[in-house]
């Protein structure tokens, strides 16, 4: 099926070339990181994780979110989602690949990465994270490819694929739970040390991921004949709305415990994120407030059915939601975890331009993978008449 990539419109190739340029820029910048090390990033002794790990975390959520299509389709036999599933699975592949690249970009000695498997350490959550991410990649690649191949030949998928699909549903929950355990088991970081972290991760993933999927599918709907179906979109939007409401609720639970208990260590990260330190707003402060307002705004636009089902408004609502969740998880999470530091002092972290360019390159790789896989899926569906 890979041959479908070779036959595309000029527009498709311009898009691929554009992504190639972005990837090239990122790769070129990475050469500097190879030469000078992570010294070119804004990270420090006090804030030892930064933008890379934050994007990794966000993207694990995006990868896991494919389950919001697969679960209703296979556990509840909701057939309207079946048409979209392949796109969710292929997006998960792109997302997992980006996760892996972000981890590699973050390593001080990337050439030793396989030490994690060479010296397996079952007491380290990172060991499990590597395992579950790889497993999820394989599951989605196999399931996606096999079901698409069968669709192409107009035959029923083999029987063994069903257990794999059921496994992938549970697996999706596990990848983001394990990612949350990376943080929530650390004794010295107040912002991370919370039992609700995995639940927060899953809820934010299950609203943000499907939102990104829908936004991308709206683009596909514009440039091709593909239509995800009105009812499917509306159902998925309802799922997104519930997940976002739960996500905001969980965040407010954190705020309550931190502030009402009055325990200084629990309150400090929140006050740093939303009020800065020593009377000065930090650069993150503005982002956090914008994120909070956008989160509430997205709910205001998604909860009333009349607004939610308005197809002209929906892309905006979803984009607002994605931005809000990204600020929470792609910026605030790591910065709040490391500021104030373990000495209860503040070391400001600001990502540097090279750091952002390398990240952009990795996003480019993800976009390229998703573009190619979606192109294959679209062409196969077109041929099979199942568009």
């Amino acid at each position, binding site marked *: 099926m890979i041959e479908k990539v070779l036959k595309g419109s000029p527009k498709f190739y311009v898009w691929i070339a554009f992504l190639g340029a972005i990837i090239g820029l990122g790769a070129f910048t990475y050469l500097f990181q190879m030469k*000078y*090390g992570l010294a070119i990033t804004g990270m420090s*002794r006090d804030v030892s994780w930064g933008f890379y790990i934050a994007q990794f975390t966000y993207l694990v959520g995006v990868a896991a979110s494919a389950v919001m299509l697969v679960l209703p389709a296979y556990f509840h036999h909701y057939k309207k989602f079946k048409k979209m599933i392949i796109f969710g699975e292929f997006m998960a592949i792109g997302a997992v690949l980006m996760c892996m690249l972000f981890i590699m970009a973050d390593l*001080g000695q990337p050439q030793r990465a396989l030490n994690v498997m060479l010296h397996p*350490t079952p007491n380290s959550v990172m*060991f499990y994270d590597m395992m579950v991410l790889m497993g999820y990649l394989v599951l989605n690649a196999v399931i996606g490819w096999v079901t698409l191949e069968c669709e192409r030949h107009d035959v029923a998928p083999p029987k063994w694929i069903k257990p794999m699909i059921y496994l992938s549903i549970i697996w999706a929950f596990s990848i983001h739970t394990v990612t949350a355990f990376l943080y929530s088991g650390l004794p010295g970081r107040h912002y*991370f040390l919370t039992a609700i972290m995995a639940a927060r991760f899953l809820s934010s993933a299950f609203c943000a991921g499907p939102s990104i999927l829908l936004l991308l599918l709206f683009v596909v709907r514009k440039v091709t004949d593909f239509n995800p179906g009105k009812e499917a979109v509306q159902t998925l939007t309802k799922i997104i709305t519930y997940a976002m409401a739960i996500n905001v609720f969980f965040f407010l639970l954190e705020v309550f415990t931190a502030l009402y208990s009055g325990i200084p260590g629990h309150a400090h990260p929140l006050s740093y994120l939303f009020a800065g330190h020593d009377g000065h707003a930090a650069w993150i402060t503005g982002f956090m407030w914008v994120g909070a307002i956008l989160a509430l705004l997205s709910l205001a636009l998604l909860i009333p059915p009349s607004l939610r089902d308005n197809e002209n408004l929906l892309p905006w609502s979803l984009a607002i939601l994605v931005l809000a969740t990204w600020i929470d998880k792609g910026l605030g999470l790591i910065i709040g975890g490391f500021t104030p530091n373990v000495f209860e002092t503040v070391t400001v972290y600001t990502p540097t331009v090279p750091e952002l360019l390398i990240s952009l390159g990795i996003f480019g790789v993800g976009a390229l993978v998703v573009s190619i896989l979606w192109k294959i899926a679209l062409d196969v569906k077109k041929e099979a008449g199942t568009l």
Partner: protein
Amino acid sequence: MKRSRRQFLKVASLSVLGLSTQLATGGIVNAAETGEQYQATENGLHAGRWAMVIDTRAFETPEDFAACINACHKAHNVPHIPNKQEVKWLWTDKYEHVFPEQENNHMSEALEKRDFLLLCNHCENPPCVRVCPTKATYKRADGIVAMDYHRCIGCRFCMAGCPYGARSFNFGNPRDYIDMAEINPEFPTRMRGVVEKCNFCVERLAKGLMPACVEAAEGKIFFGDLTDPESEVRKVLAENFTIRRKPAVGTQPGVYYII
């Protein structure tokens, strides 16, 4: 023709498999062999659990601290990096930062102004060891939390895990910040991209020497075996009021402070 190619491929792949298995297992066998070549020196110091007691009252002048810090950083070729990506094994800070959530109102001026030495706590339950995905950091039987700089992948999970900020990462090349003419050839310099920290001078203990900071402190720091009731550290602990950093996190530090 077809058959012979098939046969060739069969033989070739089996040969490659055989060769690589031999190489792989040979490597494991050899590694075990070299491991046994290391022998503890006869005059090395041993303990059931190494621990340190710092008499913070005895440190009065900045020179008192500098003597210890310089001795440590010199012995271990610790680079002096003048920015936030610094590397430090032994350093000082004020009470409120060393013992956050343990501070009190209206403390004596002396205590408020006092500096405290900070280093790796060599915890009984070290979170850094728990989180390390490659066992690059590990706990020895004598309680010392040690590191293998050659196995570390630089993921910095240990830095996130350490509640004491004891760990430093080599963001850049540390050798750029060491006077290579002045290095201690007895201890390796590190490369870029790995984490490092205080090692309780494990290399000096093996030779029968006390840790560099203990030696330089001239009686202001006590070091010994916590499991030995007759040891100096046990006596000092019995006679003085001591505290440890962040008791709430359950790590059981091996560094005690006489206040």
